[in-house]
C-alpha cells in the first residue's frame, strides 16, 4: 500500500479507469454477455476505490485490485438479481415466467457460481482483444443513436466518467447520464448482441465515423478546454490506436490514425497565446511536431500498402501533403485538388466539396474556386461555407460580397476563437468596400 493525498488518489483512479476500465468492461461483458452489468460492476469497483484508498492507501497493483473487485461486484450484482427474481417468483410467479430474462443471471460455464472468496477473471490475450473489439462494435451498433454511440464508446471503452463525457460535449451531466442509461436499456431489451459480425466492413465504417466525430469535436473544442474538459483529441487517438492494434489489417483504421497524427502535429501552432486562430498558411512550421508527422507518415504508408483505398486514407493523404510541405508556398495544391476530387466522389459530402472549392482556388485562382462553390447545396447553415465564400470573394476583388458572407458566417459561428477571427476578416472586407 502506498500513502497518497486525496488529489493524487483522484488522479490515480482517473488514470486507472482510462487505461484499464475499457478492457475490464470488455472482459466482464464478454464473460457474462451483459454490458450493463459489466459497466455497473467496474463503476462499483471505482467507487470502492474512492471510498477506501484515502484510508488504506493505493494498493501495490491497482489494475489487479480493480479487476478482482470489479469481478466480485459483478457476482454480487448477479446474486442480488437472482435473489430478487426468486423473491418475485415466490409471490408472483407469472411475472418471472417469461418476460424476465434468467439467462444473464446465470454465471457462465466454468464460473464457481456463488462461491465466496477470491475470484479471478482469467482471459487470455486473444480473448481480451476479442472482448474489446466486440465491445467497440456494440457501442457503435447502428441500432443506437449516434450521440449514444459516441457516449458509450468514450464511457465504456475509453473509461471516461459520465461527467467527463458530459463536459466534453458541453451537455448537462444528467442529460448524458440519461443518454447512457437509455442506450444500455435498449442494448439489453432489444438484445443487441456482443458479437463480431461476419461482414465487418459496414460496421467498421460506423465505428470509424464515431471515432472521427470524437476527433473533430476535440479539434474544434480547442481553446474552450476547461479543467473539467478532457482532451478528446488525445482520447480519439488512444481509441483509434486500440482499434488499429485489434484490426491491423484494416487500411482505413490506419488512415484515420494517420490523419489524427498529422493534425496533432499542429496542436501548438493553431492558436496564438491569446487563443486566437492562426490559419494554416501563417503557422510557424518549425514548431510543428516532427514526431507526430513521422508517426503519421509511417502509419499512412503501412495503410496504403494494403491497397484498400477509402475516405480516411484520402483525408490522411491531404493532411500529409500539408504536414510535409516545408513552407506554405511549397504546398502541392494541384495534388490536393485531385485528392479532394477523389474524396467527393467517395463520400458525396458537400463539406468535402467545400474543401475542394478552397483547394481549387489555391491551385487555379479564386474564380475557379468560386465556380466549384456555386455547385454546393445544403450548407447554408454551415458557418465555414460562408467564411470560405467570403474569402474567395475578397480574393476575387468583390469586397461587398465578402462582407455580406462574413456577416452570415458570424451569425452562425459558435466557437469564440473562430468568432474573433471572422470579425477581424469582416473588418478587412468592409475596409475594402468602396463608399458611395
Amino acid at each position, binding site marked *: 500500500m502506498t500513502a497518497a493525498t486525496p488529489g493524487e488518489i483522484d488522479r490515480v483512479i482517473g488514470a486507472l479507469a482510462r487505461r484499464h476500465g475499457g478492457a475490464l468492461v470488455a472482459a466482464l461483458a464478454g464473460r457474462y454477455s451483459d454490458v450493463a452489468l459489466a459497466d455497473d460492476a467496474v463503476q462499483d469497483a471505482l467507487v470502492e476505490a474512492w471510498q477506501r484508498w484515502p484510508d488504506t492507501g493505493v494498493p501495490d497493483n491497482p489494475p489487479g485490485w480493480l479487476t478482482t473487485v470489479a469481478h466480485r461486484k459483478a457476482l454480487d450484482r448477479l446474486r442480488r438479481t437472482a435473489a430478487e427474481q426468486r423473491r418475485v417468483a415466490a409471490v408472483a410467479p407469472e411475472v418471472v*415466467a*417469461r*418476460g424476465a430474462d434468467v439467462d444473464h443471471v446465470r454465471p457462465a460455464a466454468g464460473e464457481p457460481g456463488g462461491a465466496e472468496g477470491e475470484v479471478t477473471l482469467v482471459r487470455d490475450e486473444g480473448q481480451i482483444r476479442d472482448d474489446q473489439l466486440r465491445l467497440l462494435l456494440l457501442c457503435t*451498433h447502428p*441500432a443506437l443513436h449516434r450521440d449514444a454511440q459516441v457516449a458509450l464508446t468514450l464511457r465504456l471503452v475509453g473509461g471516461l466518467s459520465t461527467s467527463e463525457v458530459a463536459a466534453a460535449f458541453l451537455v448537462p451531466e444528467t442529460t448524458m447520464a440519461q443518454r447512457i442509461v437509455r442506450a444500455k436499456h435498449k442494448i439489453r*431489451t*432489444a*438484445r*443487441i*448482441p456482443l*458479437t463480431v*459480425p461476419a461482414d465487418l466492413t459496414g460496421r467498421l465504417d460506423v465505428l470509424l465515423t464515431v471515432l472521427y466525430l470524437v476527433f473533430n469535436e476535440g479539434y474544434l473544442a480547442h481553446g474552450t478546454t476547461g479543467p473539467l474538459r478532457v482532451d478528446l483529441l488525445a482520447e480519439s487517438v488512444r481509441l483509434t490506436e486500440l482499434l488499429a492494434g485489434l484490426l491491423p489489417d484494416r487500411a482505413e483504421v490506419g488512415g484515420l490514425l494517420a490523419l489524427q497524427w498529422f493534425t496533432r502535429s499542429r496542436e501548438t501552432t493553431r492558436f496564438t497565446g491569446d487563443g486566437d486562430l492562426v490559419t494554416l498558411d501563417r503557422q510557424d512550421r518549425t514548431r510543428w511536431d516532427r514526431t507526430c508527422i513521422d508517426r503519421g507518415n509511417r502509419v499512412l504508408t503501412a495503410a496504403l500498402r494494403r491497397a484498400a483505398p477509402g475516405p480516411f486514407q484520402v483525408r490522411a493523404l491531404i493532411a500529409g501533403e500539408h504536414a510535409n510541405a516545408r513552407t506554405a508556398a511549397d504546398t502541392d495544391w494541384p495534388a490536393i485538388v485531385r485528392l479532394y476530387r477523389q474524396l467527393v466522389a467517395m463520400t458525396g459530402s458537400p463539406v468535402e466539396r467545400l474543401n475542394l472549392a478552397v483547394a481549387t482556388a489555391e491551385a487555379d485562382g479564386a474564380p475557379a474556386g468560386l465556380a466549384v462553390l456555386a455547385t454546393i447545396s445544403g450548407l447554408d447553415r454551415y458557418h465555414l461555407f460562408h467564411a470560405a465564400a467570403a474569402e474567395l470573394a475578397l480574393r476575387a476583388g468583390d469586397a461587398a460580397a465578402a462582407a455580406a458572407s462574413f456577416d452570415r458566417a458570424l451569425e452562425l459561428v459558435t466557437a469564440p476563437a473562430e468568432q474573433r477571427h471572422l470579425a477581424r476578416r469582416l473588418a478587412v472586407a468592409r475596409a475594402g468596400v468602396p463608399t458611395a
Partner: protein
Amino acid sequence: MDYMILIYRDEADAPEPGSPEHGQMLAGWLAFNQRLIDGGHWITGGALALSDTATTVRLDGNGSAPGTVTDGPYAETKEQLGGYYLISAPDLDVALELARALPIRDASVEVRPVASRPDAG
C-alpha cells in the same frame, strides 16, 4: 427472444393483381416465409387490407366512457402499416438481417422486441 416486424410502405406502389409483377411479388413472399420457417424463426405473420378499411378506436379518460370510433388509420402518413411478422431470433442482429431480406423495396420496417407474450409461456 421474439421480435415484431412492422412493414410500412406506400400503398400506391402495389402491383396490379394478376400482373406478372404481382406473381413475382407473391413468389418473393412465399420464399421469405419459407426462410423464416426453415430457420426456426416463424411464429406468425400476415398482410393487412389497405388502410382505407381501417377503423381507429380512441379510448379516453378513465375508460368508463365508450371509445370514440373514427374512420381511417391511426396516423395518416404516406407510408402505412401493410403487414407484420412475429418472429423468434436469438438477438437483434439476426432480426435485422431478416428484416433486410424482406422481399420489398421502398419500405420502412420497424423491428421491436416483444416484452411479454401471455400466449407463449
